[in-house]
């Protein structure tokens, strides 16, 4: 029953959109511009159609017993935990990085800004190989980690978090940096003239001002981490309970049992839609 949610999440899209348009467009007279509406509708169909495909092909009669299989819950729990911890790590490192890029002038800032987006353009599998070459057992840093602390990241749950954080962090940084650059700096200046230190200004003025940007970035980051496949399977491997997240389980199920893969995909989809929708409501009403 829960899995009808994505179905409902699809169709309300356009109607919610038209409702918003009615409210927002109150001041503008005239007919709807078809030059915009037609491609918009085509775009929506393009995005929703694959979802409809999953729903139509889902093995509904055996859905419940497939879901009850322990390995499904295990993969789901692992996916949610890893994506959440990865997002927390990204917030800890990414928000300060975004602040640095937006507020501090330093030579080579453009280059650094471009470097931050590297994980976005890098195919995730390549990202995974790169992580192995640096943090692997024979990697530049990994070698030292193992000899000094006895820590190896590949094939561990920590490795999954590292891989997810690597590919997801740019989403957070770009979103927060955009918010910072759009925010009015006069408030920060006013606080500074009143004697606040830069840290206090950041904590009491800047951060609350860009909070919507931080939240949006964190949501994107979490969603990207949840769906992460390439870097995870390359860097962290694939073992049930420790590193087999839902996308890996889906890929493996596709090898032999496409129906099971559809069920797993729907679970991942339903859970992420429920979580994102409930978060969104909370933040929209709070704002």
């Amino acid at each position, binding site marked *: 029953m829960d899995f009808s949610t994505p179905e409902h999440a699809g169709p309300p899209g356009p109607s919610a959109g*038209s409702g918003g348009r*009615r409210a927002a467009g109150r001041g503008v007279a005239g007919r709807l511009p078809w030059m915009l509406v037609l491609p918009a*509708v*085509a775009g*929506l169909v393009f995005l929703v159609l694959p979802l409809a495909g999953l729903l139509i092909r889902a093995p509904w009669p055996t859905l419940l017993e497939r879901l009850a299989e322990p390995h499904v819950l295990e993969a789901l729990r692992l996916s949610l935990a890893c994506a959440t911890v990865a997002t927390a790590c990204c917030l800890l490192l990414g928000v300060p990085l975004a602040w640095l890029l937006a507020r501090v002038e330093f030579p080579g800032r453009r280059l650094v800004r471009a470097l931050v987006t590297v994980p976005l353009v890098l195919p995730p599998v390549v990202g995974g190989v790169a992580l192995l070459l640096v943090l692997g057992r024979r990697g530049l840093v990994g070698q030292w980690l193992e000899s000094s602390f006895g820590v190896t990241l590949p094939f561990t749950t920590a490795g999954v978090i590292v891989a997810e954080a690597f590919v997801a962090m740019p989403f957070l940084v770009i979103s927060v940096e955009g918010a910072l650059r759009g925010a009015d700096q006069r408030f920060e200046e006013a606080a500074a003239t009143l004697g606040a230190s830069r840290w206090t200004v950041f904590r009491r003025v800047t951060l609350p001002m860009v909070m919507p940007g931080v939240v949006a970035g964190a949501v994107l980051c979490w969603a990207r981490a949840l769906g992460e496949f390439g870097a995870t399977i390359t860097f962290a*491997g694939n073992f049930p309970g420790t590193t087999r997240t839902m996308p890996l389980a889906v890929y493996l199920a596709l*090898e032999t049992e496409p129906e099971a893969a559809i069920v797993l995909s729907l679970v991942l989809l339903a859970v992420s839609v429920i979580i994102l929708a409930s978060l969104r409501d909370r933040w929209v009403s709070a704002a």
Partner: protein
Amino acid sequence: MSRRLPRWAIALPVALALAGLSGCGSGEPAATPDAGSSSAAGGGAGEVTVFAAASLTGTFTELGKTFEAAHPGTTVRFNFGSSATLAQQIVQGAPADVFAAASPATMKTVTDASLAASPVTFVRNKLQIAVPKDNPAEVDELKDLTDAKVKVALCAEQVPCGAAAVKALDAAGLKVTPVTLEQDVKATLTKVELGEVDAALVYRTDVIASAGKVTGIEFPEADQAINDYPIATLAKAPAGDLAGQFVDLVLSQQGKDVLTKAGFEAP
């Protein structure tokens, strides 16, 4: 009110979407129109599309060149990948002429869907223990893999090399806890090449292909888990006769020479 999106603007795409989907649904078992149109597009010049297991990458590429030389104007296109994935792609209607699988089970997916008839076993492949060049964990027999300190990579059981690994370990009565179950044999071997694991069970042919980077160790139980590679022309082969001629080349003495040189065994 005139600015509201008309109802049909929502209804139309939804209807289109449903029509498209139902079309896919009913069209799949009888995909003849698709196959017909793609054969027409293929044209007389001749193009053979071969779906082959990842472990055949080197040998089939070589045989493809031989085939093109023998049939001027013909192109052989390859899709190499995990046999299970390829089988699914064929069942979903991918326009292929020949399927060469790394296990009878994956070929069965295609024959069960009546998309290929009478596959022939053309080679067999055997597992070996692959270890990094310097063999850090000093592995020299299958039993060493049970040591908890030895990091082992295996293929996932869903893909042929993983199924063979389970069979071999069962035959030896050993229980190995791998650190990872990789999605195909090449990914498993990469983990050894990079030194991330101490040992892996992969095909002998893969060890030969990576000579210089990994060392292969034979083990007697591998004989209990020999993988047969079946090949078949597909029922809806857009290339028609050319498909059969490519299979003939693989089964010929010339084909056998190329395959055995790479470490495959004759069936």
